[in-house]
């Protein structure tokens, strides 16, 4: 691996942090919804879309990010937000609906917005793609040297917003990288039942921009492809479309019976868990020993616990605060 060791370590640490965050959110999400699952009940009510397994798509771009770069993510946003460095305490507090959260409890887990770093996401499929185009327009007009990254699922590539955004970004040669997280299922609908061609990266040719497929759910492969695409955007050579084959280890949302994916599919998926695979590889290549990885886990677990403790110690907003922030 011809990659600076610091970058490999950083990617591993971030993967551990993301996975731990998702595990703890999952535990707390279910902690008080029993015996009968009630989506409205508990410390974390509402839908919860967790990204365990999709860490590589997020951490691979992280070493190439500059301050001020913008990211738009999806309804499954935690991994990308954490990789970009969104304040973990405020993010946790938002997910727990607290006054100290990123949006003072107004947005919740699908609507996390951060000014610094410049992060946004949405519960609507494909909604972030035109926004990333606009961010890139602003960076170009203001000469900031920044770029925009737009994350979306393979299901979103069949939305009009995908095609319109690609065309605009290509037409105006904007500094955007479009990143398709292909986890093979749009809720229950497999890609083969939703998409006319196997790889969305091939759709780039319709707009005259590079389209690159990353066939493995591996942070190093993502690092290399994203590095090239982000450099290209930063140089002023225009947008790229990247498709990364990844895995959603858990259901579409927590509480999803996940009956639409076969046991065999799920077994194979769990066997190739990217966090386990990357950890093994780092040992084999002499980058991080098992003891060093254990120390990283301890540190990252503590970071996650601190964020959750911060959230749980924070007050709920006053009910009437619902009226605030409608207009500037």
């Amino acid at each position, binding site marked *: 691996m011809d990659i600076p060791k610091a970058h490999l370590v950083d990617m591993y640490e971030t993967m551990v942090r993301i996975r731990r965050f998702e595990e703890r959110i999952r535990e707390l999400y279910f902690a008080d919804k029993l015996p009968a699952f009630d989506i409205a009940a508990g410390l974390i009510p*509402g839908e919860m879309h967790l990204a365990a397994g999709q860490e590589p798509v997020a951490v691979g771009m992280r070493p190439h990010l500059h301050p001020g770069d913008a990211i738009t993510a999806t309804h499954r946003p935690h991994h990308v937000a954490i990789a970009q460095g969104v304040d973990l305490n405020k993010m946790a507090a938002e997910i727990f609906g607290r006054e100290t959260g990123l949006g003072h409890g107004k947005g919740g887990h*699908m609507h996390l917005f951060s000014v610094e770093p410049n992060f946004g996401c949405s519960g609507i*499929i494909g909604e972030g793609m035109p926004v990333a185009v606009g961010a890139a327009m602003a960076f170009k007009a203001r000469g900031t040297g920044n770029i925009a990254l737009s994350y979306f699922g393979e299901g979103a590539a069949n*939305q*009009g917003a995908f095609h319109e955004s690609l065309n605009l970004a290509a037409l105006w040669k904007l500094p955007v990288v479009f990143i398709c997280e292909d986890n093979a299922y749009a809720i*229950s609908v497999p890609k083969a039942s939703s998409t006319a061609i196997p790889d969305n990266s091939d759709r780039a040719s319709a707009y005259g921009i590079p389209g690159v497929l990353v066939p493995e759910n591996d942070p190093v492969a993502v690092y290399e492809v994203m590095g090239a695409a982000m450099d290209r955007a930063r140089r002023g050579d225009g947008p790229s479309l990247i498709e990364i084959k990844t895995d959603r280890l858990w259901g579409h949302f927590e509480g999803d019976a996940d009956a639409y994916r076969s046991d065999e599919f799920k077994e194979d998926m769990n066997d190739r868990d990217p966090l386990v695979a990357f950890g093994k590889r780092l040992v084999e290549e002499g980058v991080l020993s098992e003891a060093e990885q254990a120390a990283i886990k301890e540190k990252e677990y503590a970071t996650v616990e601190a964020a959750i403790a911060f959230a749980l110690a924070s007050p709920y907003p006053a009910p009437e605060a619902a009226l605030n922030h409608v207009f500037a």
Partner: protein
Amino acid sequence: MTTMTDRKLTMQKAIAEGIAQEMAVDPSVFVMGEDVGVYGGIFGATEGLLDKFGPERVIDTPISETGFIGAAVGAAINGMRPIVELMFVDFFGVCMDQIYNNMAKIHYFSGGNIKVPAVLTTAVGGGYSDAGQHSQTLWGLFAHLPGLKVVVPSSAYDAKGLMISAIRDDNPVMYMFHKGALGLGWMVNNPHATGPVPEESYTVPIGKARVAREGTDVTIVTVGLSVHKALDAAALLEADGVSAEIIDLRSLVPLDREAIVASVQKTHRLLVVDEDYQSFGMSGEVITTAVQGAFDYLDAPPVRVATPDIPIPYSHPLETWTLPSVDRIVAAVTEMVSG
């Protein structure tokens, strides 16, 4: 008319049964939308249909609402009766042009020559901390647009009968089911969500309100899950000696103005409970109807309990404060009758 029955169904199962019965007798009926097949609909409205009718008639679509809702329009004007699902009404933004510039207007533009017999089903409503992109009702928005019928069932019986009516209707019908009224296993248990449903096919006419509870002191006009809240509030008010009549509109378009006026003429007071945003919506329309039709009968200014004009917030205390509740209904009625 239908026979009485002891069989009870949830509203979700009643909707799926209504669709299945129409599909069985009318080969032009088909279903499409996201996760309507293998999954059975995220809210179960198409449960079991794929097994019964196969993938030619129960079609899982890509996430392409403009495409497949527009396709429903095309199919409807060419001999089919599509039922097309917009998973959450909040997602209307990606496909509104096909709904309001196409589906709703073609019959008018054609001078009545072309019919668009499509049913657009969609899930509405909040109360479970899904935040502002998955919790709206928005029926006022669709009712505002000429050319769409807008149906909102609140009981299992009505849900089946209104679905069958919607499928047979030669107009585009927006069929909006409230997530909290469906009787889903993963939502808070709502005893009103289950009720008697005859096994045979039957219709409930679109445009006729239902008196969900008779009373004499105040009329509560409402729709959807708020009917259940109004019933709970009425039980509490009765203990205080206040008799509330509840009008379940069942559809916003057509609006049963006669039922509103008749009830207000009887009770002399009007409260509108609307989970939609307060301004420029259903509550204003109902009050206008009452003022025009029963002005001399009113003993108090009409009052409304609605969602204030703010996006629906995520955090539990914020959302609870925002949405109409039993407490807010009781307080509003109590103030009105004591004033």
